[in-house]
């Protein structure tokens, strides 16, 4: 089977300047979530040379897809619309209604950038970011596209902060607060990457997702042995158990806790961890890594990368 490569990344954090990145045109109608995703995608295209100029991109539109992870989409827009609907429905602005659909940001990004193979939004909780990359790999292998822009976005707002605080109070989550941002990667078949002389950041050699049970230890052990894994970067926002007790047979020194240096950004955690692993000097000497995300309900997603 052909290798699947990560060939570029674009990302923004909360201090981003959308006008600087995108220009003024069309910005007024974009809510914050859409701006986050649009900006990270724009930076990805510029970083990889896929954006030729303001109008043209260097990829085949029908062969390029988008997979993004997000908890709710434009959550602030959704709640604003709902509260207006409850108060004065006859005065609600219909132009903002499309923003209340979770896949709207992905839709706007597809329209602006001519992404026409397909567009998917995932809301799989904390593991969604890793799922976006893993599913990109699978869709490429199954022939649905030649390149996938895969990543996620999450918008910080009052309601999300409140929900996190409540989940922390209920002892479901470790962290009381949540960050925001957007990260998008270009994921493509090696043949496509070679054809355009793309820089290769990593190969995605493994992806799976399943519920943790007593056999999970064996699965992870087998992966570590088979692929000579030298680091497992993990994130687990729940409180019930520590990672060492979940995988007691593995060397503790293999594990690196993403939350040691980052606060959670919900669905973004997986792609933020991946970006960190690919760009940080902390992992300069690591070649074969697993990224491991665990939802509070113990659904685990594993991404294997070879730098």
């Amino acid at each position, binding site marked *: 089977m052909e290798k699947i490569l990560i060939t570029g990344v674009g990302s923004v954090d909360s201090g981003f300047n959308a006008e600087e990145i995108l220009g003024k045109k069309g910005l007024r109608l974009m809510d914050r979530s859409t701006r986050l995703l649009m900006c990270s995608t724009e930076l990805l295209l510029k970083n990889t040379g896929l954006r030729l100029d303001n109008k043209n991109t260097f990829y085949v539109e*029908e062969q390029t*897809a*988008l997979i993004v992870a997000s*908890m*709710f989409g434009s959550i602030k827009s*959704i*709640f604003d*619309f*709902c*509260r207006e*609907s*409850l108060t*004065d*429905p*006859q005065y*609600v*602005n*219909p132009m903002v*209604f*499309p923003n*209340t*659909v*979770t*896949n*709207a940001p992905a*839709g*706007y990004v*597809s*329209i602006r950038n*001519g*992404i*026409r*193979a*397909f*567009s*998917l*939004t*995932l*809301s*799989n*909780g904390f593991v969604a970011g890793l*799922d976006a990359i893993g*599913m990109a790999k*699978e*869709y490429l*292998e199954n022939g649905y596209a030649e390149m996938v822009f895969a990543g996620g976005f999450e918008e910080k707002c*009052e*309601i999300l902060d*409140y*929900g996190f605080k*409540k*989940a922390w109070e*209920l002892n*479901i989550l470790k962290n009381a607060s949540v960050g925001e941002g957007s990260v998008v990667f270009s994921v493509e078949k090696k043949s496509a990457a070679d054809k355009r002389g793309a820089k290769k950041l990593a190969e995605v050699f493994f992806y*799976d*997702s*399943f*519920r943790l*049970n007593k*056999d999970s230890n064996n699965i992870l052990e087998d992966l570590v042995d088979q692929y000579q894994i030298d680091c497992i970067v993990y994130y687990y926002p729940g409180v019930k158990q520590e990672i060492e007790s979940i995988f007691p047979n593995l060397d503790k020194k293999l594990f690196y806790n993403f939350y040691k240096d980052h606060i959670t950004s919900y669905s973004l955690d997986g792609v933020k961890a991946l970006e960190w692993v690919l760009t940080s000097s902390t992992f300069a000497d690591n070649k074969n890594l697993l990224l491991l995300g665990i939802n509070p309900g113990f659904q685990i997603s594993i991404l294997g990368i070879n730098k």
Partner: protein
Amino acid sequence: MQRVVCTGMGVATSIGLNVNDFWNNLINGKSGISKIESFDTSKYERHYGGEIKNFDPNQFLTNEEKKSLGRGAQLALAAAVQAFFQSSLVVNEIEVHRYGVSFGTTMGEPQVLVDISEIWLKEGLEKVSAELAIQLPMYNIPDAVAKKFKFGGRKTIIPNACAAGNFATAYAFDLIKTGKQDAMMVGGSDPLSLDAFTGFCRLGAVAPEVCRPFDKNREGMMVAEGAGALVLESLEHAEKRGAEILAEIIGVGISSDAHHITAPKPDGEGLLRALQNAVTQAHIKEEDIDYYCAHGTGTQANDSSESAVVTKFFKSKKVPVSSIKSALGHTMGAASAIANVACVMALQSGIIPPTTNFKSADPEINIDVVAKVGRKTNPNIVVNSALAFGGNNAVVLWKKY
């Protein structure tokens, strides 16, 4: 590569809370549209929708599930329970990772959204209880389904709006086909949404009382709620355990218009591409398809452009077309999942469901609309088509087994 078959189905709709009632009412032209009661429509110009009036969660859910889950997850579970029991699937501890869940939705839990918003408006955000707040994430839907049946494999919620059910089904199809999963519960769920009702009303897209897809006098869509679920598994797995096979998925097609956030592309290029991708994958020709189960919302824009695609794609014959949204209204993320159930029933029974309320042909629409009651044609291959906001298109090809 594995073949992918369906061994169980379930629905929760305004015309039936089980497949038998749903199907019998559908083919006999019964409508589930009624005056909306779950929220106040007095400030709106429209008052009708496809609301499920008699859903009793006690039939399908435990007390804990009723307390902790929003209506979206409850409807999903109701449909999934029926599908699971029809399939007679037995999940043993060794194989749990081989069984997954893939569901689609638009908003997940819009009723919870409204409940939170009402409290926020009247008393302040800090008065929203933790128990209510944690019902909001749409991930609760596949989570609840997986927990109910102890499925430990892939677990996904795809909020791809009105095509979500087909996207979720297509994803599961690929996982089973490539041997990554043996069986998956797939489906879609969306409760009645005040946001959707308000938005579509304000866009002028909602009909006064009746939804008439493809009709000359169609006035728009109906906002509705529902859930549909199907058990898909590999043929090998189904045969090994002696399961009754209801139908087979032979191909799927997905695409993106990249044209407009709400309007379909006028030339229908995206949907055409999805249809072509599906028939190519299935190794069939368009003339092999015996029924087109349309997205057919009842709006001028959708029905015109979709019927133009049908005419363009089916060159060799006038394939029968119907839209079950005429009976149910538009159940959003559940729509294509419920339509998949209708497609399987069409293959099983030999009857194509009708476009309820269709009266007068539109001279600008040159398709064969199955009208009022079901038509006995004994279809062998049918296609279920779904289009969504964001320009997302997904089609599923079903074949009689």
